[in-house]
């Protein structure tokens, strides 16, 4: 039997629990709206502001079987000081790694304010017994993770066992303790926007602090329409209950231009309140260097070469 | 002073948007040139390319298909002198271009003439739409070398099908030139595949191929009954293409019709 969802500290539920109407999503109109927002032309100072925000909200990520403490530590160095040639470039929001790499990352990030996020719950497939997945979370937290990125059980979701999906999230949230919880939907496996909306609302009801699009291991991942669909669901929860849930776009965002398009989506759907690392994250790896290149181009006027930006 | 020696052209097959030689390594002489002689494996590769390319072509908007085919007309128009040398002359080339333009203009009109809503007796909305059949094998007429091929190529293309065509055996050079025009237009790779070689050898392979949906026998004069028998194995749509026809019903031979019902109610 599920426990009541764990709520952010200080938040009072009204006497009757409310969820927004689940409803449907029209795919054609959703895709048109996101395409139209993607055409916003962001230039000059607005562009620099956006690029800087993108860096501040990046979860710099490495999730490979071949990751080693050395690799993870190098990434952490990059995370705390993305551009040694430009002191005005802020650190990223977090570094995201597999649980085994958490200690190495934590050590390198000490004193920087950059968070350590660990994927858990049998990432990326989630095809393991619940007890194993919850133990995975507990150990990641013990190793020092500030944030946990879990995956929902898509097998359960697609076979209509929504209660199982819900219960697991509730248990994981409890195992997180102080760590904040991001729930990955793996939208590329859900098939329809209607399902994405349902999964978003379900995850939020079960206690997610953030909802996240993808593991980054399959395609399609964080497309603009899917992001818009999830942002609209987040907005409906906020309108209905006053609760703010964060959003993380992850997977397939390689170019600065795409990052800016994602930020425009947030700005025009949820407004400026969500444009901060507390409520917005971009999960990416190669994106960071592209943003640095764009920033330098804005500052100097010249197109840049990758040779001048470190690969860590 | 010796005259300048021209660079001699190599006449290859057109499969998947590229120009490979025959996997068999064979060639034959036609119109004084060495031309690739396609084998059954080339047919296999061509059908595979066609099948892979067909869904994208069918999913393009009708407007887009029309524009792409119009662009093909632009590319042929730009090469009128070259084409004229490979067929009966300028007149045949101009007729071919006009025929491409004529068919291009049908792309966005077919459902309006071939489909429609059906007034069924009951609270249902019912409509019929034409759809491409899939991969069409075409045995191009032996003559005329350009106009004959264009006449049989455009009808299946306009409707959203992908084509594997066998060029005229004796006069294949116009077909190769057309392949080059296709390659420089916006026709996606694999939507049109052109094989040069022996119709007697390649015809039966196409007719028996289980992943070909329709067969146009325009260029198969003598061996048609045998090909029709082979085609029956997967119930191909068999079309006896006319060498010089220009009609929407030519397009319709390569289309399926789908009818949909939906209730009307509050």
């Amino acid at each position, binding site marked *: 039997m599920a426990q009541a969802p764990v709520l952010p500290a200080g938040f009072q539920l009204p006497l009757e629990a409310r969820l927004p*109407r689940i*409803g*449907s*999503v*029209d795919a*054609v*109109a*959703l895709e*048109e*709206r996101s395409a139209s927002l993607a*055409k*916003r*032309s*962001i*230039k*000059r*100072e*607005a*562009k620099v*502001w*956006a690029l800087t*925000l993108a860096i501040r909200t990046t979860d710099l990520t490495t999730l490979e079987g071949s990751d080693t403490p050395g690799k993870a530590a190098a990434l952490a160095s990059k995370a705390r000081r993305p551009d040694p040639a430009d002191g005005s470039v802020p650190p990223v929001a977090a570094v995201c790694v597999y649980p085994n790499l958490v200690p190495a990352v934590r050590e390198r990030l000490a004193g920087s304010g950059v968070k350590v996020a660990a994927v858990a719950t049998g990432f990326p497939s989630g095809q393991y017994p619940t007890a194993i997945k919850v133990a995975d979370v507990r150990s990641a937290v013990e190793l020092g993770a500030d944030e946990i990125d879990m995956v929902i059980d898509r097998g359960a979701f697609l076979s209509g066992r929504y209660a199982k999906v819900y219960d697991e999230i509730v248990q994981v949230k409890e195992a997180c303790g102080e760590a904040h919880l991001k729930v990955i939907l793996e939208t590329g496996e859900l098939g329809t926007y209607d399902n994405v909306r349902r999964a978003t609302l379900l995850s939020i009801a079960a206690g997610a602090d953030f909802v996240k699009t993808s593991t980054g291991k399959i395609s399609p991942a964080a497309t603009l329409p899917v992001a818009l669909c999830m942002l*609209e669901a987040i907005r409906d929860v906020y*309108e209905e209950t006053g609760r703010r849930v964060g959003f993380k776009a992850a997977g397939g965002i390689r170019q600065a231009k795409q990052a800016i398009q994602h*930020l425009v989506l947030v*700005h*025009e759907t949820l407004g*400026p*309140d969500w*444009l*901060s*690392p*507390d409520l917005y994250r971009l999960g990416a790896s190669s994106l960071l260097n592209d943003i640095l290149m764009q920033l330098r181009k804005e500052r100097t006027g010249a197109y840049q070469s990758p040779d001048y930006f470190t690969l860590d | 002073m010796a005259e300048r020696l021209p660079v001699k052209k190599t006449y290859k097959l057109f499969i998947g948007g590229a120009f490979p030689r025959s996997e068999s390594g064979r060639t034959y002489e036609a119109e004084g040139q060495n031309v690739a002689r396609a084998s059954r494996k080339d047919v296999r590769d061509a059908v595979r390319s066609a099948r892979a390319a067909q869904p994208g072509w069918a999913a393009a908007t*009708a*407007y887009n298909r*029309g*524009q792409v085919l*119009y662009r093909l007309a632009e590319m042929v128009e730009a090469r009128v002198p070259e084409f004229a040398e490979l067929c009966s002359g300028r007149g045949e080339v101009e007729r071919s271009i*006009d025929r491409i*333009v*004529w068919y*291009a*203009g*049908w*792309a*966005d*009109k077919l459902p*309006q*003439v071939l489909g429609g809503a059906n007034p069924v007796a009951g609270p249902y*909305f019912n409509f019929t739409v034409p759809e491409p059949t899939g991969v069409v094998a075409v045995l191009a007429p032996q003559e005329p070398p350009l106009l004959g091929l264009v006449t049989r190529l455009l009808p299946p293309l306009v409707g959203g099908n992908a084509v594997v065509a066998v060029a005229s055996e004796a006069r294949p050079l116009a077909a190769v030139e057309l392949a080059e025009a296709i390659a420089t237009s916006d026709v996606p790779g694999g939507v049109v595949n052109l094989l040069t070689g022996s119709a007697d050898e390649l015809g039966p392979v196409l007719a028996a191929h289980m992943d070909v949906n329709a067969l146009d026998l325009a260029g198969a004069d003598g061996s048609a009954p045998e090909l029709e028998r082979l085609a029956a194995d997967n119930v191909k749509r068999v079309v006896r293409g006319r060498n010089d026809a220009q009609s*929407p019903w030519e397009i319709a031979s390569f289309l399926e019709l789908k009818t949909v019902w*939906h*209730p*009307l*109610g*509050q």
Partner: protein
Amino acid sequence: MTEIVPTGWTYASAPESREIVRIADRYGHFVGGEWLEAAETYETIAPRDEEVLAAVGQGTQADVDRAVAAARGAYADGWSSLPGSERAKYLFRIARLLQERSREFAVLESLNGGKPIKESRDVDLPLAAAHFFYYAGWADKLEYAFPNRRPKAIGVAGQIIPWNFPLLMLAWKIAPAIACGNTVVLKPAETTPLTALLFCDVLRQAELPAGVVNIVTGDGRTGAAIVEHEDVDKIAFTGSTEVGKAIQRELAGSGKKLTLELGGKAANIVFDDAALDQAVEGIVNGIYFNQGHVCCAGSRLFVQESVYEPLVAKLKRRLATLRVGDPLDKNTDVGAINSAAQLEKIRELVASGEEEGAEIYQPPCTLPEQGYWFAPTVFTNVAQSYRIAQEEIFGPVLSVLTFRTPDEAVEKANNTPYGLSAGVWTEKGSRILWMAQRLRAGVVWANTYNRFDPTSPFGGYKESGFGREGGRHGLEPYLDFEESEAFGG
């Protein structure tokens, strides 16, 4: 730790450069393939700041006479007897040229008319080119469009178009007319002549024979001269219902063929099972696209009472994200009102709405000092009898009413002398089809709005006009038919 972020992320201005288009100081009329000096001229401006763009001709009776004569000459000289396949190729050329010069035309359209560049670039121009491309393909296939009727051209068509989609309306008129073998005298709207005049340069590049298309600019007087001209065989008019009726009266008994595309007061109907956020997009598109200067605008929003509050809340929030501003800025969503006269009409009707008791909402919006601007507006608590629910405002003003059942929605939607278009928002397929069957409107959009395509017939019921533009049916107004003798025709 929450950071302080700016209260709004202001996108920097992103203007489309106007250097791509060259505007002459002065234009004459384009008649018989040549530019005729205009004896009388008037100034055409940019509504965003009232800058004078050019002096254009005020067509006189003599100008119209010359234009009709040129059209008649070109018709008799062989345009209609030219093989359809040759006519087709001229139209294909025009289509391709419009595609190539698309940006140039889009900038000019936005400058002269006031609509956002985003719209002229992404909607008006692609559709205009597509319209020519579509009708090009019919020019040599008319016998398939009308089997057994032996279609033939009529003669000279007089065409009068409005200021809301200047180039697109020109395409809708000229393409089918000349595809069918007719020749044309066209008058663009008084406030938006420039893209029509630039179009004459496309005709030059396409090498269209002289006199097949003639453009005469001017105000209503020039239009009247065309309508009344004896040697014009067919009139096509798109504009206000008032003027449409006047034209119909004028032509009574003359035997001239007529098509009219007039005003509308479309109902946009949202059921409680609609995909709400997408419905809001459709509502916004329905009334704020092109500043509401759209005959088929969804100006009456009917919301099922059971979903009224969430829908209206979402709508008001969405209005606040609409960017009103310079039409040439790529980020502008809502541009300038086309003219001072139109702005006055909108203001008058909005004032009447407030007087009659409706509740007005306008998002906070800084409007520029110069030029003609109106903030996106929504009225709630609207009664069916209020002027804002009855009369066409032709501006960015939405009236919201409620309903309870599908029957009631249909009844209220149809309760108007107009009948151009309607919108239906519901996830239930059978209800979409049931509503579509009952709505007395020439175009029904389900789960979408303001969608146009050259293959899709457009036109109204009742006082919204008669005749269709687009599709196979769009050919009919431009043809005479010799019915087959066997059927007694």
